[in-house]
């Protein structure tokens, strides 16, 4: 196990690398159900559904057809930590795109994804 630097990270949708990205984040959550009963001293929980979402930020390009990527449910999402290590979800839905233009700065774009995969996330 080693530390890593995000410079070598990458994001792919399907087989296509999203160009000029500056960050990604992955949020994995597990629902819980409160099963505490009268007479218990401590609260009890049962695990529920596991889910993940991801977001990506980068520099926007004029040639990128971003809106067409919204709602596409059958794309694999691969989040590379470095060249050899990555999270893979066979399917993820692009749930949002925010593109910004500012007179004093380069254009920026961000994507958000929701997991849509019964097999969940795999880490290689």
């Amino acid at each position, binding site marked *: 196990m080693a530390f890593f630097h995000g410079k*070598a990270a990458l994001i792919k949708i399907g087989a296509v690398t999203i160009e000029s990205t500056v960050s990604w984040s992955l949020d994995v959550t597990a629902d819980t159900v409160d099963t505490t009963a009268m007479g218990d001293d401590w609260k009890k929980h049962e695990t529920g559904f596991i889910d993940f979402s991801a977001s990506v930020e980068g520099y926007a390009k004029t040639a990128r057809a971003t809106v067409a990527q919204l709602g596409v449910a059958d794309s694999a999402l691969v989040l590379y930590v470095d060249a050899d290590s990555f999270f893979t979800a066979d399917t993820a839905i692009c749930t949002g795109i925010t593109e910004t233009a500012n007179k004093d700065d380069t254009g920026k774009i961000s994507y958000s994804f929701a997991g849509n995969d019964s097999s969940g996330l795999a880490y290689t």
Partner: protein
Amino acid sequence: MDILNSICSAVMTHYNSLDDSKKFNSGLYFCSAPQETTGDYVVFDYDGGSTDEYMGGADDAIQLADLRFSLFTTVDDGGFTLSEMIDKLTDSFDWRDIQIDGFVSIKFQRTGNGPVLCFDGIWQTTILYEVMFIKGDG
């Protein structure tokens, strides 16, 4: 080719591509002009730069650089010729798409100017630019 060399070469290439009417009668130089230069001439300097990297390989980055153009004229006419030189320079460089192989120009932005001075009949001023390029082909 390093980015300093690339940017400065691109400025010279862009200048050399201009119509003669938009050029300075004694030329554009990098860092220094010949000692005895007279007439209207401009010297530009690389005032430093920075790199804003994004994910990927070592050269995946936005390159920022500050350029300083120093305008000189030995025509002692109260600054009229100097103001014409300012117009020529800004018309030719403000937000122009300066071509660098392997990079895409994001901006060539005028960010300021220095005072107008006259020493021994030589009128001069400076114009500052901030330029930004990103690796790629468009």
